[in-house]
């Protein structure tokens, strides 16, 4: 066999997620002197601890060829329930966390059953559960923010004194998810299901169970994300995580995942989420008003995806 020469073009194409991130990072550093300050960078990490988890859950669903629009609603519902338990029923953070996670899993299970066994389309199913989740969150929170500022352990989750537990938690979960995807048969089969579910079914694998489990992973991570996000202001609300599904999908796609399933990577999705975070961050630093920010973000996502498609084409043309 011929030895493959190192080819700059191939390298750039294969790693375009990282390249985009790096270029953006450098541009940000040049544009604003405050960008590279530790406070700002730590802030980005704190901010993204939640959204990255949501994106990773989304990734597993996307790998199977599905989509989970309910993640934002799950984020809100689980954190509202947990905070109400702590504020009104005197429960500790541990118990509240467990309840949040259970709610996330239950919502995921509902999605999974409807999609895998009820043969509903992921888009429609999760659109419905998004509405259900939002409504439930409004009922639980009675439409008002749920504050738990007098519970020290809640504040500690996002505090420097304890080494930013949510950032550490987020990193641990990223590592676990990356290992699962790379090194377990579970991760392998999830990708296979998205690639060609008929072939996987005929290879004697229970495709439905795997698809269902991916929605549960998504629900689980969304609920943990809800707890992380709420801890920063020690407040849960029914608006928490609103629109989070779009950022999560964008993160997956910028990270090279295919919405048709079968293609995507944990690490690249994390980079994708951070890319979106950088865009928001630099615009905040430069004082771009909030409304135009949304438009710029949308445009940059389109550009990133077009780039992905272009590089995909070069790969398959060989």
């Amino acid at each position, binding site marked *: *066999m011929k030895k493959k020469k190192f080819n700059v073009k191939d390298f750039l194409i294969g790693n375009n997620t990282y390249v985009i991130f790096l270029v953006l990072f450098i541009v940000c550093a040049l544009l604003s002197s405050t960008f590279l300050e530790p406070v700002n960078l730590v802030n980005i990490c704190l901010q993204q601890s939640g959204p990255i988890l949501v994106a990773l859950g989304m990734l597993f669903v996307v790998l199977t060829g599905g989509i989970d629009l309910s993640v934002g609603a799950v984020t809100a519902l689980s954190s509202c329930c947990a905070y109400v338990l702590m504020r009104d029923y005197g429960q500790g953070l541990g118990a509240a966390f467990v309840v949040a996670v259970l709610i996330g899993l239950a919502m995921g299970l509902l999605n999974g059953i409807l999609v895998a066994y009820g043969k509903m389309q992921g888009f429609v199913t999760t659109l419905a559960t998004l509405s259900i989740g939002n409504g439930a969150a409004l009922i639980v929170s009675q439409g008002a923010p749920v504050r738990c500022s007098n519970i020290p352990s809640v504040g500690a989750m996002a505090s420097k004194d304890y080494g930013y537990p949510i950032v550490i938690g987020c990193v641990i979960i990223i590592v676990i998810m990356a290992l699962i995807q790379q*090194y*377990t*048969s*579970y991760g*392998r*089969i999830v*990708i*296979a299901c998205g*690639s*060609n579910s*008929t*072939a*996987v*079914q*005929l*290879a*004697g*694998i*229970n495709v439905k169970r795997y698809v269902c489990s991916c929605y549960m992973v998504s629900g689980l991570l969304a609920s943990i994300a809800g707890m992380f996000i709420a801890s920063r202001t020690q407040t849960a609300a029914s608006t928490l995580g609103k629109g989070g599904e779009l950022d999560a999908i964008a993160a997956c796609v910028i990270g090279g995942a295919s919405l048709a399933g*079968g*293609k995507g990577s944990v690490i690249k999705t994390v980079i994708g989420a951070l890319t979106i975070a950088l865009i928001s961050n630099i615009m905040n630093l430069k004082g771009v008003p909030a409304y135009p920010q949304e438009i710029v973000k949308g445009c940059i996502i389109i550009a990133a995806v077009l780039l992905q498609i272009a590089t995909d084409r070069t790969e398959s*043309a*060989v």
Partner: protein
Amino acid sequence: MEGQYRLEMKNITKHFGGVKALTDVSLKVEPGEIHALIGENGAGKSTLMKILSGAYQRDSGQIFIDGGEVKITNPKESKDLGIAVIYQEFMLAPDLTVAENIFIDKLSGGKGIINWKKLRADAGAQLEKLGFDDINPNAKCGSLSVAYQQVVEICKCLTRDAKILVFDEPTAVLTFSEIEKLFEVINKLKKRNVSVIYISHRLEEIFRLSQHITVLKDGAYVDTVETGGFDKQRLVNMMVGREMTDMFPERHAKIGETVLKVEDLYAGKMVQGVSFEVRAGEVLGFNGLVGAGRTETMRAVFGADKKESGKVYYFGKEVNWKSPQSAIREKFGLLPEDRKKQGLLLEQSVRMNTTLACLSKVTRHGWIQHKKEKKFVKEVLGSIQTKYGSTEDNANSLSGGNQQKLSLAKWIAADCKCVVFDEPTRGVDVGAKTEIYKVINTLAEKGIAVIMISSEMPEIIGMCDRVVIMRNGKVSGEVEKNELSENIMIKMAMGV
């Protein structure tokens, strides 16, 4: 002299990146002739036809139609010149009706409003012309059998007054009666002075139909010969560039105990009381028309479809597999007919494809041992001489024959004791066919019971120890190797 040809392609060259796909290839087709184009997979037939249809651009060379040079830069120009291609994978919209598909680009006849009644009547008339008046113009294309879908596809091209019609492996999905009808259609086209370019791996058909044969090999032009008076063996040698003495390699398998026994199986309309058995080391053929229930029988045994009644014994023990999982757990594998849709993960690595059905072999507590897996994959693929670049390459980078071997490797890796092959050589070239036969022989010699569903007579006769023939969901006959002949099988399959 050039004026006498309907189509002349001169010195066509095409590169893909650094790879030469075609070098100085020429093709001359007379008006109203059936011209066969043959060569092994990867010889450049498809590339040449894609250049003709405007899907690819040639790097150099000229194309003449009726003596005048033409430039084909996109599919529309090709269509306007009267060139139509019927691909192996049909260009039909499965959710639209037959009539809608046939007239897809002129639904309203330029009026803006669709006259449904007329559309249906026109479609019906077109179908009747081909002798397929049993196809309902109102039926959704997706609900038709593959064979009928092809008829619709042909119909679609005919309504566009094509002067040059390219058939790419048209009979791969058809059986006797349908092939006969297709040949009638093709001969009718010939009488209408349409030029037909006919690509097929089936030499019998080429000799029956064509007037000239052009042979390609490795992207280069070998020769064009007159079909009359040429013999098959010489043609095969030209294609592969080496002596092909024996299509069907010899097998030294010892036939042992009964592995699978099926009694009075019922499953839906297509399986109406099927009984058969297969023994270790035996190759059992399943023949019959498309839609006779061969695939459906096997799917029901495998647990992919529901069984209504009947008994299945596996190594003497009664089993009732409700899903493929249970069948595979007991080492029973099925190689589906459509490897691209049902057998392979085309966008995933060779490694992943091989170990899909036996991940537990290369994992410890759910964790994949990557080194062990790579070694295992190389061993398995090596044992059946699969050609691939690296274990990390995507499955679709392999040639057709090797893709088929890859989907088979999955069952070898899973140590199957009984394997069903559904049309194992469909769409693969002569050389690769022999390779697949060798693999089947190796399996039988290892004592594995092999069931081979096939519509190709020579293959059934050359490979099988015993053949079960099905008709209308029932077994219409069983023939031992020494009594096998095409005649007997056709009679049983058609119920004459």
